[in-house]
């Protein structure tokens, strides 16, 4: 059953829940997956996003999300000035991303440490989003749960060690997905949990030898 704030709400910057509010959340998710302040981002806009992004402020919305803003932040309208102040270089490119949702964007972001991520996601209506790809790994992430993301060597035991660490800290796994590009190369694991993932848990996961990147992402 829907809640009252699904009907009277959300509080948001207009004009469109899918093209503006959803786009802010997409940008925020990219920032969270990058795990640090972005310095440079190339944003590829597909379908309806490509066609109407100027009129709907989709470009500004994604930029605002990259800077960590919420969907109701009144600075979104003038976000490009703020991006310049913060030294975030932005590029928006209309693109054909193939057979994907009409409101899809792919963001290639580089952080202050030089870390790079490529994240693809869609705004699926009412401000809701789904991340569909992280660094060429197919994923399905809506940002409704606390989420642990790891990129690790594809070898036996990693999933067991990670889930053991979570259970030791009383973190319950709601959903889990592991994907990889090639056998024995690198794998990406996404664990959505009912409880928040503390710094301590994250540090333990990072200490697993095969883990290259570990990120704890709060719900959007």
């Amino acid at each position: 059953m829907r809640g009252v704030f699904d009907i009277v709400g959300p509080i948001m910057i207009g004009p469109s829940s899918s093209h503006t509010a959803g786009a802010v959340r997409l940008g925020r998710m990219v920032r969270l997956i990058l795990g640090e302040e972005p310095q440079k981002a190339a944003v590829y806009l597909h379908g309806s996003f490509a066609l109407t992004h100027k009129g709907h402020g989709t470009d500004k919305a994604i930029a605002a999300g990259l800077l960590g803003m919420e969907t109701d932040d009144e600075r979104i309208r003038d976000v490009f000035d703020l991006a310049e102040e913060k030294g975030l270089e932005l590029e928006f490119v209309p693109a054909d991303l193939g057979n994907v949702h009409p409101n899809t964007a792919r963001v290639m972001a580089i952080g202050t440490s030089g870390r790079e991520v490529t994240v693809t996601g869609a705004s699926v209506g009412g401000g809701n989003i789904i991340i569909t790809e992280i660094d060429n790994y197919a994923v399905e992430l809506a940002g409704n749960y606390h989420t642990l993301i790891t990129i690790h060597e594809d070898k036996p035991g990693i999933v067991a060690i990670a889930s053991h660490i979570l259970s030791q800290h009383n973190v319950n796994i709601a959903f889990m997905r592991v994907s990889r590009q090639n056998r024995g190369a690198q794998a990406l694991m996404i664990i959505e949990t009912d409880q928040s993932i503390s710094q301590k848990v994250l540090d333990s996961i990072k200490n697993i030898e095969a883990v290259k990147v570990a990120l704890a992402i709060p719900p959007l």
Partner: protein
Amino acid sequence: MSKYQSIADLVKVAEEKGTRISEIVIAQEMENSERSREAIWNQMAKSLEVMKDSVEKGLTMEGKSASGLVGGDAQKLNKRRLEGKTLCGDPISKVVAYGIAVNEINAAMGRIVACPTAGSCGILPGALLAAGEALEASDEDLINALFTSSGIGIVIATNASISGAEGGCQAECGSAAAMAAGAIVEMAGGQPGEVAHAVALALKNSLGLVCDPVAGLVEVPCVKRNGFLAPQALIAADLALAGVKSVIPVDEVIHAMLEIGRAMPVELRETAGGGLAKTPTGQAIEARLFGKK
């Protein structure tokens, strides 16, 4: 408490318990979300503040939307209203100005409350705040009215739709007017049965309304339509409070809206593929904005 599935359920429980519909909606929300009454109340109070703020900003804002298609019309009407020159007078002219004001703020990337959607975000605040001023309602009355309108919206969303892509504009602006109508009746001291009739009367009058925005933007005809549909809520409320009844019961009207939405061609459901969007001027605007032939 049982979950309400229809407006009839809401009316029945309210009558049995001798309580207002807003109380039933609050209780159900507490149960669903496992949050306290205070937390829910405060969140709705924040929505009311944003609504008031968006009306005020819309009546004074400078400039236009990014496309240049809308902006400044609420101010024009409000000026004429304050000069005492409008034919409709108050509160109707005020409701129209408020409704347009909020939707102009939305188009100009200002802060609004989607209710139920961003495209229809001027109707509920416009109607409710202007009616509230006429009734000398307190913030508490207005917050209760927002809960009543949410309950009505939940039923419409569950049994029909509040999405233009699914049901056309009737589902967005029509639902908003119906939510406002019912809430205003309760705020004015009407009985639960009268709330139901107001919802039915308002919704019936926007059945069949298509969603054909020029260039796919939430601007033309959305902004002015918010101005036209907001007073419809007050008219429906007045009729219901006067004892006028909808011949077709409200839940059947909601079902009719679902059926009409299903029968609506996709060109007229938020795709900018027909109607006003495909008029010569609509196409010329689209070409100018997006360089499309």
